[in-house]
């Protein structure tokens, strides 16, 4: 069984307890306008081209079965690229990169196991992320079940957009579930993510059934959701339905912009801004006043 992944990121220290390996699954049912992992919109293999690293040696051109030149990011060339990956193996500067790769359960486990000692010492483990990990249900099921049997601590970061009954056995293997609440208002939610939030909210209500620790995350973005009414209403929802859950407010960042360029995609709207530190404190205080425990993995 193979899955479509963006990457395995060892030494992750902000996606759960301890030192972890985060596995980024490709493909996502949402299409958030600020997404920092645009290679994960779909499960299609894609070749990234980081022009800044290119020295113009032309090795990529020599091996390309489609006769595409060096300038992969030109729209014409992109159209013809089949993402075969031949150029990735020859590029001496790693300017070409497989942005989505296929890996078997065994391959993933072999890579994860390398860092076993580091997880055990730190209380860490493996975190499934994305994209949206639940979209590859069968792969996630097999992978999480094997890792569970090996005794790893497992966390998941999810958009919450899935069939709850189908996912429940998988979620029950998790020590910690991070679920996003991108906007409490369904219309706004649809406007920015492409889907309404009812299904997500319904799933959120049932998270208690998993037995896992729950952290509800809000990616805080100026221009989308960084205002008092939204945070307060989100807090009220969580408090009402998940009295034991913690919440975490994460400031939006623009680290993913380089990837948009490498994939010749249009950049996200520029009116999305990182909230200031003061703003973050202000919003956190709203939740603190509501007696909602905050999580902090920095």
């Amino acid at each position, binding site marked *: 069984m193979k899955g479509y992944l963006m990457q395995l*990121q*060892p*030494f*992750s*220290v*902000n996606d759960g307890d*301890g*030192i972890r390996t*985060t596995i980024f699954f490709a493909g996502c049912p949402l299409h958030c306008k600020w997404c920092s992992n645009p290679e994960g919109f779909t499960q299609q293999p894609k070749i990234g081209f980081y022009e800044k690293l290119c*020295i113009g*040696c032309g*090795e990529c051109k020599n091996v390309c079965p489609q006769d595409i030149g060096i300038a992969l990011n030109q729209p014409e060339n992109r159209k013809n690229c089949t993402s075969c990956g031949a150029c990735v193996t020859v*590029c*001496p*500067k*790693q300017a070409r990169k497989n942005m989505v790769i296929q890996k078997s359960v065994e391959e993933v486990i072999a890579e994860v196991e*390398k*860092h076993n*000692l*580091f997880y*055990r*010492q*730190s*209380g*860490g483990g493996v975190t499934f992320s994305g994209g949206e990990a639940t979209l590859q249900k069968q792969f996630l099921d097999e992978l999480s079940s094997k890792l569970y049997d090996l005794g790893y601590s497992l966390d998941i970061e999810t958009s919450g957009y899935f069939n709850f009954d189908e996912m429940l056995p998988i979620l029950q293997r998790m020590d910690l579930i991070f679920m996003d609440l991108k906007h409490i208002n369904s219309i706004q939610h649809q406007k920015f993510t492409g889907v309404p939030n009812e299904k997500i909210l319904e799933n959120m209500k049932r998270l208690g059934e998993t037995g896992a620790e729950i952290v509800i995350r809000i990616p805080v973005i100026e221009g989308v959701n960084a205002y008092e009414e939204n945070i307060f209403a989100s807090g009220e929802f969580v408090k009402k339905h998940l009295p034991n859950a913690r919440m975490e407010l994460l400031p939006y960042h623009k680290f993913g912009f380089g990837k948009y360029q490498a994939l010749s995609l249009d950049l996200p709207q520029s009116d999305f801004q990182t909230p200031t530190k003061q703003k973050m404190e202000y919003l956190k205080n709203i939740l603190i006043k509501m007696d909602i425990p905050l999580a*902090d*993995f*920095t």
Partner: protein
Amino acid sequence: MSITPRVEKIRQNYINTKPSISYERANIWTQSFQRTEGLPMAIRTAQAFYDTCNELCVNIFEGELIVGASGEFRKCGILTPEFAWKWVDDEMDNFPQRPQDPYEMTEQQREFVRKNIFPYWKGKSVEDAFLARTSEETKKIGVDTGFLDTDSKWRNGIGEISPDYIDQLFPKGFSGIKKEAENYIVQLNETIAEEKDKITFYRSIILVCDGIIRLANRYAEKAVEMAQEEKDTIRKLELLEIAEICEKVPENPPTSFREALQFVWFVQLGGILSENPLALNPGRFDQYMYPYYKADEEAGKIDYDTALELVECLWLKYSEWAWTISANTADFFAGYTNFENLTVGGTTVDGKDGTNTISYMAIQATKETKCHQPTLSCRIHPDCPAEFMEAVTELVSTGCGFPAIHSDRTGYQMLSNLGYAPEDAKDWNNCGCVVPHSRKTFEWTSSCNISFAAALEFALNEGKSRLSGEQVALFEKDPKTFQSYGEVEQAVLRQFSFMVKHGVISLLTAQKIHKEQAPRPFLSACNEYCLKNGKDLVDGGAKYNIGPVFTGVGLSVTANSLAVIKKLVFEDNVATMSDIIDALNSNWEGYETLRAKAQAVPKYGNDDDYVDNIAKELADYFYKDVTSYNDIYGHHFVTAFMGISNYLPTGKVLGATPDGRKAKDPINEGVSPYTGTDTSTCLAALRSSAKLSHDIHSGGTLLNLRLNHDLVATKRGRANLGAMLQSYFALGAFHVQFNTISNEVLKDAQAHPENYKDLLVRVAGYSTQFVNLSKSMQDSIMARNAHESF
């Protein structure tokens, strides 16, 4: 408690003063030697030590609580012409101006030294003897070359000793040691040759005991004298207390924490005056100091803050003495660092956790004073208390590069592999930068720097230096005609063995000379077994005599380079040997694409077996080859992957290398990845390093890593760092040390040194003030790859 005004004042003076050279000790020593010609060398040396203690100026500086100075200056370096004078003569005109480790020295001082001191030593120093006895062939590869260097063992005193406070110094005091020597003499028969030698040895011991007691008593007299004139009543009382203490120690066993501290400093000072040593290690400070602290504290005689101030005063004493070294040596040991290695933490001999209040106090003292000395090391065992780990990682997070963090178990294993009894191996302390050591040991721990990358260059250049064109090593066939990877590797190992051979020859010569003309009565007096055996350290008097250590430099550059040849030439056939050699001869100019391909070949430090296995093969060969030779005492030589700052001078003399490195660029230190090539994660770098069998390299192994400061900014981040350390040690590794200061800060410090006088950074195995490093050294520190969280 924050730092006291007294300590802050001393600290400000320390960071704002350039060390000055004092010739006083050299002058007294020389005059003494002129008077004692014809006597046994041990007696001459001991007499010179006594005379120094008796005549050297005594200075108690403003605010000091711990007293004793090596010369007239507060920040002071001394001369030891009996080891070498020629480099001083050649270089001292430039002392104040030289880029790395400048010293103040006046024209009058230089004139005096040239007229009154150096002429006597012409032809008599250790250096003179070494150069006279060394063949041209050995000199060509092994004297001031940067390929193979042994000069710290014939241009300087040896040092590399850990005085034994536990079984020798504290329980006996120097009066007790003297008495022991006298008792032995009574039982010996002067008509038996061997016993006659012992009598000479014990007489040298009596002389040095009298000497150090005399020096302390002169400080007592000075303190009384100063007290009489002191107007400030508080300082007056302090001076009287100093006088009282110096009357008692180190003559007698200490009876309080403060006396013990003053005792420790007098021993250090005695060591400095006797040979200006590198790595005179205070050792397991928390273990031997805690009982005094505990007793005083229980008796209500001292509290934590008072003790801390005293410890900080001692830290500044350690730092105010500057090691006087040649410009060449200063490139290897940059930053006035004299490696007074002080160890805290770890298990006790009976296997229990040994951390105590003093372990934490030592860490706090380093954090507050930001002194470059002592070289603070800690031992971490699997059951290390979380609070101690937090104290250690918190110090790491300040960016000062301290402490050097060591695996308790691997250190034990390293000594066990050398044949130590378990109880001694378990009590190991650090020596110098990263050498597991013992207070019962005589060893040359940093004897020979040997460059793997030089062997590679000779293999790929017919035995010639690529930069000078000179034939310095074994002749080798035209590298363009190598037919297989195995052939290339064999050539590298052959050249390496040739270098090892000349390193061994050099060290055998140096050992013999030290045995003949550089006995060490003072440091022998600090060693329990020298007294028991009636033999000086240089005659093998210690309980453990360990062979000299070879330090391998440039392991990762060489492994990376061999991987490039293996993959590009003999596996992928994308380049020929001719292409590679031509590229190296052109310093990669005009070969940008080939260079890019070379850089893309797997690099050591990324947990990739393709290249890590080559590094391991090289390291194992190094071990096998070096340990096949025996020293003059019959003990096999030992290997290490230490650091010091040797990766700069060893790089400066090399042409381009196949890994893509350009000519004259630095190589790498210890088992660290090559700068900027450990691009995966910190964990991968640790895993690569751990693949080398650390425990067989009993001379110590060293890993430097840079961490992004954000990673250790929070308590949680530091807990993860602690877990990372424990994992690394569980994999069998020995040492790791971190720089956590961002390049932005370092760049600003380079541009505005006046704002960063106390900024400590990690060099290799030790830390020193960033502003005291030459520009090239600063640049190389900035070039190390910083590991982000992802």
